[in-house]
């Protein structure tokens, strides 16, 4: 079975671009643009890694992170935070992110980071 990656970002252009970057046919990629859907998506998709934006309306990335980390199920799930915010990294680390990538990112670095969590 192909490994699944969930990408959550409120910006459609980012989602499409990330899908193009990561979709090499070896994995399932699920795009979530409405952050409130994330818990449902996680429940059925059982991803091996999540790419999560920080600044999203209604439910922000760090709020999602904190909720996930508070559950047994998702305490160890690799969650890579992607953000254009200056304070993004410290906010992400504090909320329990596994890794952080600043927007705009180097796609090689992005691929490497994601691959690292798929194989492990």
């Amino acid at each position: 079975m192909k490994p699944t990656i969930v990408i959550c970002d409120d910006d459609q252009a980012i989602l499409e671009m990330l899908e193009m970057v990561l979709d090499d046919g070896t994995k399932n990629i699920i795009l979530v643009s409405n952050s409130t859907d994330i818990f449902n998506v996680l429940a059925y998709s059982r991803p091996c890694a999540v790419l999560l934006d920080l600044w999203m309306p209604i439910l922000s990335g760090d709020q999602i992170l904190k909720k996930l980390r508070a559950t047994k199920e998702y305490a160890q799930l690799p969650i890579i935070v992607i953000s254009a915010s200056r304070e993004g990294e410290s906010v992400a680390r504090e909320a329990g992110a596994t890794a952080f990538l600043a927007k705009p990112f180097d796609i090689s670095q992005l691929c490497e980071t994601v691959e690292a969590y798929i194989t492990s």
Partner: protein
Amino acid sequence: MDKKYLKNTNSIPISYDLIVQAIDTGINGVVITDNNLPDHPIIYCNAAFENLTGYQRSEIIGHNCRFLQGKDRQQQERKRIREAIEKGESCKVEIRNYKKNGDLFWNDLTISPLKTQDGQITHFIGIQHDISDQRALYDDLERERQKLEQRIEERTEILQNEREFADSILETIRESLLVMNADLKVISVNQHFLRTFKVSKADTENQKLYDLGNGQWDIPQLRILLEQVLPTNNPVLDFEVEHDFPHIGKKIMLLNAHRVELAGSYKNRILLAIEDITERKVIEERKDDFLTIASHELKTPLTAISGYIQIMTRNIPSDAGVQFRSALAKAEQNLSRLNSLIGELLDVSKIQSGNIKLHMEMFDFDKMMVEIVDAMRCTTTSHTITLTGDVSRTVYGDEVNLSQVVSNLISNAIKYSPNAREVGVFVGTVSDYVKVSISDTGIGISPNEQGRIFDRFYRIDQTQKKFPGMGIGLYVCNQIVKNHQGTLWVESENGKGSVFSFTIPLGKK
């Protein structure tokens, strides 16, 4: 002297012949007029009178004395003389007389009546001398006195105008002003102060600063600074007070205090200016929020574009031409430029409003330096970067901010030395400071430019076209170093390269 005349009068004894002779040769002019003859003619004059007036005796005898006044008939003194003669009294006047040649002279004239034993006035004797010199001196003095008086008047008026001018400035200025004496007791306040704090003059004047309101100015740190203003002449600058004030509520005030630099009665006074910056702070914060959101929003599509360009770069068809490859590379370069410009804008906005939050902690300075130099080495193929020295201890500071300073300085060194091959980075401790120096052998900076390169948006004219950028990198560096209580400076010579150095305190161990 006419002896016959003397014999006819009983009042002057003839034995006075000798005295008459003396009078005749005296230096004061003497005339005698006959009171019994019509128009009181002069019947005697001495040689001194002839000398005094320039007239010959023959032109004098028989005339009334008034010929001496020429046409100058309106003098008050004439009236006095007339009255004295009518009443038969003595009188002394200073009167303007004219010599035969028309020259004015001031005549100090004393007239006295000569009386018979039964009190009949027979003659008047006039003694006179020329006091023109004294009068001239007196007139000069008088003129000087008047001039002085006029000058004092003018000066007083100027002072008064200046005072009114200063007062009107004090009253119109949109800043609260307090004048205090050496004990920090309030001597005066302007209207703006009273309006701002909704207090009366009586609430404020003659009170100690620290006792005003609900003790809003009684802040230990401010006390120390204010009490140093007079002895050290160090002003208090931009001291921020956030306080819940009586009547007006929570406000942020900015304080400046200076010694009033005057001798005399204004010595040892302190002028305290208070500005309400509450609104400005709110606006600044809004501006910061706006820029933060704007930069985030700008970066989102930029991230997408950047991703697509990278995908294209990865998948360049093998038959792609030089133009295609170069266009793609340029698109990527410019995108990264756009990205750093957005970042710089945010930096400046935050630094300007003092909203850069430092995350101070002990960190491994040497490790940071190695990481930065390694990262910078990846960005350049033209220059080698050599790192020498170390700190060998942790340093207290904001690692993210400080690494921004070092990378900025290194990338400047590379950028402004296009024909050189080496950039030197030195790090070490000097006393209880860390010192970092970045040296290049590039275009250098002329002495008159050196003072200004740390200004916001300042770009050296000649570099404007050759080297892109907004000119805020060094401004940001300088502000970050300042926030660390450090200093950033440059030593440079045109055409010979530059050395940028900064020091910051090592901090607690």
